[in-house]
């Protein structure tokens, strides 16, 4: 069904073109026009990505919607796109999140509206490109290019310390990416002149080469996830980023790191992955336990959620490296769910920040008295963040914990501590911000969410509950691909 399809190109380029159009035509004098064009672009981008899911053949693990054209013949580089059951979910998540970000930024962004909207639309296309690229150089181009709009988003619309955060973010991720480029060039030579990622999967490699490649990719992907101890850029980036930036960062950008492990590290270096799995599991569990405790003592709401993000991403890397189906599918589910939940948590903080211009927990108290509707949404997302069954936050954690217990009881034991710490830091923050008597006159003047905010939060609430009560549609799509990946990783390349 996917022969000759150009759907993926449309899904990638439509938001980018829409973004360029907004950039070219919009200015702050006709900000409303820019908003409307951006909304149309984001909506169209989301709608045309839906057929990727509905038209997806669940029975095969082959790449679908493949496009293959020559790009730079001199180096055998191709414009090669395709999706499997793993990447298709993230493309949908990206286009959905972009739509939310555009709506959420509708009134909040007042300066450089067109540029703001354009940055997020272009970023959306580039991130989808990362998930769809099957050519290593194409992947690398998208990978690096998506940093630029995010760098700008933080640097222009960010908070007071935005330059420090933006530079830290950029340098951290760039240094990792350079080693990845080295690895890709090595693979190019080793494979006799191919940049096809799928060719690399089948490439026989010695253990030493695999370990080096694994470590090179590790620096690139671990920074993005982010894994402990290369995570410290994330809290700073989140704190300074505008709400939309935080949402995209949490929902999508962290996912490309984990996606990289799935697409590159595991299949290209399976023996090294097994050899280093203890190391990866250790780092993941440190992320879950250590970062969970660090999140507990944060006084800045965004920092708290940023740390909670790192802790939740620890489940993703844990799930990937325990090498069973429950763990790996759990990791993928957790990635999608974290997109919804962390996105929603940052939006909720954004709603408060727009009104009070502070993220400090101590400046709040008794918000529920003034914003009951908001309090209800925030409660739902806080519970999802604590992994309550019935919300999407439960599904991935549950699967990974069960998978981890299968692998080793103590992995599961340490991972399951999130049941306590996750609930502690999330609900303690909720208690201090939302419950209680009205704490000060500024809280007294708060007004409940408007229809635009309601729409965004309601869409996310539907996603969180839908996925929590009936996650089957999400996992069904990935079975064949995950199966294939697991059998591939189980076979030694030596």
């Amino acid at each position, binding site marked *: 069904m996917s022969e000759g399809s150009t759907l993926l190109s449309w899904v990638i380029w439509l938001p980018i073109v829409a973004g360029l159009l907004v950039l070219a035509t919009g200015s702050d004098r006709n900000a409303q026009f820019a908003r409307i064009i951006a909304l149309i672009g984001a909506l169209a981008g989301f709608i045309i990505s839906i057929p990727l899911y509905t038209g997806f053949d669940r029975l095969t693990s082959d790449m679908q919607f493949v496009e293959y054209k020559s790009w730079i013949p001199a180096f055998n580089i191709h414009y090669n796109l395709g999706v499997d059951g793993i990447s298709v979910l993230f493309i949908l998540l990206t286009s959905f999140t972009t739509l939310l970000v555009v709506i959420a930024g509708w009134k909040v962004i007042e300066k450089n509206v067109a540029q703001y909207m354009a940055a997020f639309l272009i970023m959306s296309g580039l991130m989808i490109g990362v998930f769809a690229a099957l050519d290593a150089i194409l992947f690398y181009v998208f990978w690096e290019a998506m940093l630029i709009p995010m760098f700008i988003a933080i640097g222009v619309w960010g908070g007071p310390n935005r330059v420090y955060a933006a530079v*830290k973010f950029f*340098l*951290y991720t760039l240094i990792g990416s350079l080693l990845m480029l080295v690895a890709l060039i090595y693979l190019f030579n080793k494979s006799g002149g191919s940049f096809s990622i799928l060719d690399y999967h089948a490439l026989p490699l010695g253990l030493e080469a695999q370990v080096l490649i694994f470590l090179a990719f590790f620096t690139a992907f671990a920074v993005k996830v982010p894994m402990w*101890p290369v995570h*410290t*850029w994330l809290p700073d980036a989140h704190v300074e980023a505008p709400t939309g930036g935080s949402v995209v960062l949490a929902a999508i950008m962290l996912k490309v790191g984990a996606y990289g492990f799935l697409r590159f590290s595991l299949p290209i270096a399976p023996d090294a992955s097994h050899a280093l799995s203890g190391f990866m599991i250790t780092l993941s569990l440190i992320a879950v336990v*250590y970062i969970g*405790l*660090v*999140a*507990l*003592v*944060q006084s800045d709401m965004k920092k708290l959620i940023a740390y909670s993000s790192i802790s939740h991403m620890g489940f993703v890397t844990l799930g990937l490296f325990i090498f*069973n*189906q*429950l763990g790996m*599918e*759990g990791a993928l589910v957790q990635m999608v769910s974290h997109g919804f939940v962390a996105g929603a948590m940052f939006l909720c903080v954004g709603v408060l920040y727009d009104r009070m211009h502070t993220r400090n927990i101590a400046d709040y108290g*008794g918000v*529920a*008295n003034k914003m009951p509707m908001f309090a209800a949404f925030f*409660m739902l997302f806080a*519970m999802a963040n604590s992994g*309550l*069954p*019935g919300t999407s936050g*439960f*599904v991935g954690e*549950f*699967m990974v*914990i*069960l998978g*981890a*217990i*299968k692998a080793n*009881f*103590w992995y*599961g*034991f340490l991972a*399951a*501590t999130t*049941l*306590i*710490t996750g*609930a*502690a830091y999330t*609900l*303690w923050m909720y*208690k201090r911000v*939302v*419950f*209680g*008597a009205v704490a000060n006159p500024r809280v007294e003047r708060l007004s409940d969410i408007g229809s635009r905010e309601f729409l965004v939060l309601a869409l996310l609430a539907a996603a969180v509950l839908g996925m929590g009560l*009936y*996650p*089957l549609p999400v*996992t*069904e799509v990935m*079975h064949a691909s995950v*199966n294939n990946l697991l059998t591939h990783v189980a076979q030694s390349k030596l």
Partner: protein
Amino acid sequence: MTEMQKLYLLVPLAPLAGALVAGLFGWLIGRALSHWVTIIGVLISFAASLLIFQDALAGHVFNGSVYTWLTAGETRFEIGFLIDRLSALMMVVVTFVSLMVHIYTIGYMRDDPGYQRFFSYISLFTFSMLMLVMSNNFLQLFFGWEAVGLVSYLLIGFWFTRPTAIYANLKAFLVNRVGDFGFLLGIGMVLAYFGTLDYAAVFSMAPELAGMKIALLEGQDWQLMSVICILLFVGAMGKSAQFPLHVWLPDSMEGPTPISALIHAATMVTAGIFMVARMSPLFELSETALSFVIVIGAITALFMALVAIVQTDIKRVIAYSTLSQLGYMTVALGASAYSAAIFHLMTHAFFKAVLFLGAGSVIIAMHHQQDMRHMGGLRKYMPITYLTMLIGALANAGLPPFSGFFSKDSIIEAVGLSAIPGAGFAYLAILAGVFVGGFYSFRLVFYTFHGEERFRHAAPAGHDHDDHGHHGPVVPHESPWVVTVPLLLLAIPSVAAGWLVGPMLFGGYFSDAIFIAHDHHALAHMAEEFHGIWAMMLHSVATLPFWLAASGAGTAWFLYIRRPELPALIKAKFSLISTILENKYGFDAFNDFFFAGGARLLGRSLWRGGDVWLIDGLFVNGTARLVGWSSALIRHVQSGYIYHYAFAMIIGVFLMISLFVK
């Protein structure tokens, strides 16, 4: 789908629909419609449960899936129902008490601004609890388990402006999460070794794995079944508030009284008891786990009852009494008398709901005063409340012919016959607990309803709940019919439910649902001795528990009616003991200091020491500073002046010459 299957679905979905309507559209449809829609939902659910109960009595068992929640590899996670006599009985108890509480709430929450929200929550609770008891697999059990925890959290913190309420609800949630931590690990172990989470499949496989040993720690072999059962039981300790995870339940009294009756006495807290009974095919395979269960239960039964003696808040007395009664049920589980535990669960649900709702009725009459020291002599103002609470107290004390007698006496006898290690200690503990139970039950009744009318010279209610606008001395009066009718309806089974002891315990009622190993024959032995309820009552007069309970009640009479000046003297005399009891053995202070404080300290040191100092300070910014520092040095060389460069060149030339030209 058959007619019965539709009925099964109707049971949880009717309250869910009510909860959604009242919760989402309560602002639109108003107060009266909100309570009607939820009450009708629960009424439908109750009626359907009765029909299902009847069907289950006829011996029908249903085990089927509703939908597939998730698949991963070979593992399927389903949402499904197992309807047998155990779940059918639980459904009837849950929906009946819930219905009574719904009606009662009309009166109790009459003036509360969060009226619709409250109805929505209690209907949502009913839905969650029903999903828990109707489940046919561990996944859905865990779903319901956590969902009731959520609603409990929401309801304890219902008055979210009160600092004590939002402290209590966070505490309740977190302590429950400690239990759930063990529970989830237990479920994970079940999945890892059985490959499925379906009850029927797990239970049928269990005997094969009975002898299996696993080495969780190097060189230490543990019996798989013991590990699984103890982990699962940790979950029960959280939810059913067993020592040392009991600390959340007394504080949960910050919630409105109807939910204290529904959630924190009759239903939710018994989920752990139900779960262990459901898992009898697993627990029966591990003597170690059963010993653990019986010891934990015994500690809870006795030591929590002792705390009840010194409480002055009417709700907290009942809360500690609940803890103690839950301990009795747990002890019964440990003695393999699962059906006795479930039987006590049922009678307790009725009489404890009566006690709580009666306390609520008193609290309304006293304008939200909960301190018994400001009550006394209420019986002539509130005759119906007095009568029903007296019934509740008699049942709680375990005096015949009230329901609690039959269930408690059966438990005591079963424990006496049990040969499990720890049963001897448990037997002594629960016997002592009978005396204490008789004492605190009647202390409550006498202190509140008899004696001097202390409310006449009491300060007005200390709570900030001044909706009523009354100040000064209050003259109490009986509560409206929406309050008293549920009390009367619950008082009936509080008297009579125990009379079913014959068929339920000794008539093989639970034979399909509960498995008992061959050598755990306490109940079977009792069945041979059982000759009807009259014989049982007559026989009891010649046994120790009856006299212990009666003397407990008598002591209460002596201390609180005959010689009301004595308690203060005793307290002064035994100040050390009373201080220990009033501080609840110091658990709260310890937990606050050690766990809550310790976690924060650890988090702060990891953050400051690890993230800020080491990673960011030394590595990230340190690297950046190193680069900046070295380039600042090198920068001096590139000054831009030609003569600097020329000078440097000349020095270079001289150096080269001196090095190479020799």
